[in-house]
């Protein structure tokens, strides 16, 4: 197990390195830069600005400096757009917010989704099943960016119960709507996957054996059926965690929560390559880590898997 983790980490490092280099070159060959504007700057000014950000250096030197600063100083460089902030500041400000409601949405989606799926499978072909399946499909088909305005309209404009946006240090009233909007579609797919997986498990031989030896249904489900049911669900949860974090883009726009999504799209549109690169690297690294954790969780859920 330990050897496996070390091996995986050793593979992860070149993966992240290639990711950084690829994104770096992609952005540098893009037409238009952060300093191109409608009124072209005088060449001397432009040269000065470029010198300030090190853009006058040859490309390999820029890449080398960039990598060097990340590895030894954990410094992603200054933002091109905001004169007084660097990328570390922007990430440090936005990421905790994204992480908070992302993690809550992830929790909500998996807990509700899995419970709904299990309930549907246990009460197969009853009204509970139909309601759960219907809810799951509806939640999946309604895009989550449409949930945002609908929620604001109902809870803020009509009922006047919740604030329409903002963060306010993560007070719970400000969290409810972003979490609902972000989690519903994943809730739907998790419920569907859990249901079909549970149905398959409930039809297998070892469950019949457990029932035949007289175990009560409750312990058949908790002790025997749950773990194998969750195996395919876990492999889906890993990507969902990443989606939930990157999905913060639309939550930030609708609810003005100030997470990292806003910074990402903003930097993409204003060609603030430093921020863009920093956030891409952050999310890429996170994905690699989450994938590793998913694989480890696999081993816990399925003892047959050995690393």
């Amino acid at each position, binding site marked *: 197990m330990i050897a496996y983790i070390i091996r995986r980490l050793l593979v992860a490092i070149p*993966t*992240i390195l*290639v*990711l950084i280099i*690829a*994104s770096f070159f*992609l*952005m540098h*060959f*893009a*037409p238009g830069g952060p300093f191109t504007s409608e009124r072209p700057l005088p060449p001397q000014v432009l040269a000065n600005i470029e010198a300030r950000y090190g853009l006058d250096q040859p490309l390999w030197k820029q890449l080398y400096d960039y990598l060097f600063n990340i590895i030894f100083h954990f410094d992603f460089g200054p933002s091109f757009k905001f004169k007084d902030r660097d990328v570390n500041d922007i990430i440090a400000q936005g990421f905790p917010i994204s992480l908070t409601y992302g993690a809550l949405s992830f929790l909500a989606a998996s807990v509700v989704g899995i419970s709904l799926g299990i309930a549907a499978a246990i009460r197969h072909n009853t009204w509970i099943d139909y309601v759960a399946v219907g809810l799951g*499909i509806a939640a*999946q*088909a*309604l*895009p989550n*960016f*449409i949930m*945002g*305005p*609908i929620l604001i*309209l109902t809870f803020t*404009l009509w009922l006047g119960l919740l604030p329409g946006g903002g963060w306010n240090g993560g007070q719970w009233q400000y969290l409810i709507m972003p979490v609902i909007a972000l989690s519903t579609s994943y809730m739907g797919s998790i419920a569907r996957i859990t249901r*079909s997986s549970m149905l*398959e498990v409930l039809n297998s031989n070892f469950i019949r054996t457990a029932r035949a030896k007289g175990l009560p249904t409750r312990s058949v489900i908790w002790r025997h059926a749950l773990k194998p049911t969750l195996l395919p669900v876990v492999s889906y949860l890993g990507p969902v965690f*990443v*989606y939930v*974090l*990157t*999905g913060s*883009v*639309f939550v930030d*726009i609708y609810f003005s929560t100030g997470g990292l999504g806003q910074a*990402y*799209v903003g930097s*993409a*549109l204003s*060609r603030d390559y430093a921020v*863009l690169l920093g*956030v*891409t690297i952050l*999310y*890429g690294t996170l*994905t*690699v880590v989450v*994938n590793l954790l998913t694989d480890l969780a696999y081993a816990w859920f399925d003892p047959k898997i050995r690393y």
Partner: protein
Amino acid sequence: MFGSSQKSAQLAEEVTDFTAVQGRSLWQDARTRFVQNRAARTCVLILALIVAFTIFGPYFAQWNNEEIDWDIMGSAAERGMPSFATGHYFGVDDLGRDLYSRVIQATTTSLLVGLVGAAMALFVGTIYGIISGFVGGRADNIMMRIVDILMAIPTVLIIILLLVVAGRSFFMLFIALGAVSWLSMARIVRGQTLALKHREFIEAARASGVSEITIMYRHILPNLLGVVIVYASLLVPEMILAESFISFLGLGVSEPYTSLGSLISEGAGTMAYGTLWQLAFPLFFYVTIIITMFFIGDGLRDALDPKDR
């Protein structure tokens, strides 16, 4: 001596009348199973109706999707509701554009995006996966590492990155969607190829002197198709969702063209002013397409891959 009776003659005829048992191919079986699936059948019908609507709908339109109704412009909430009198069957948006024509145009775009995205995944992913799995060894290792790295970048980020770097256009949108959708397809195909590679019929083909390339497309490819088609059909709604998300961010197709995603986000923005039809019509088409695709995908999976339920 045996007497010859009519009965024995008939019997003899029956014995000698040997017609070969009609073999049933996988595809025939799959088709029967699919047709018997009522939900999937209904969904195919509904989807066909929507496609027919996008083809024949424009003939009934009284307004072009680029025209602006100057009379109504600016007072959409009071006078822009759906009506036959003004010729705006689905109403107008706040710029006075006819929603009927725009919804048709948007539905076409979204369907195209879904199909093209899935088709690109189908071609690129299948070819990549087969080669990687069949060749094996170091090539396989390198090819799969590349996929791993690309998979490590979150989908939405890749699409945003590509659209920002290369500029917005229909073509780029397809490329961007295709660029992210083929990865998991390649993985699935590779896994299946690895499982097939050591089967006896492949060995038999090789022993009888069939070339490697012919083995790939005559023997491996047909055995993969079931899984590949099922996965591609599930990709279609995913592509439509991804495109809507991108349109929502303002990076999708540009005006006068539009897609369901951008119409929905526009409608959602103006919902508070009471122009609910701006949201309702695109949302209806969008949700219908997604749900029918879900059921068709499920039906295809049940039909082509009976053990994986």
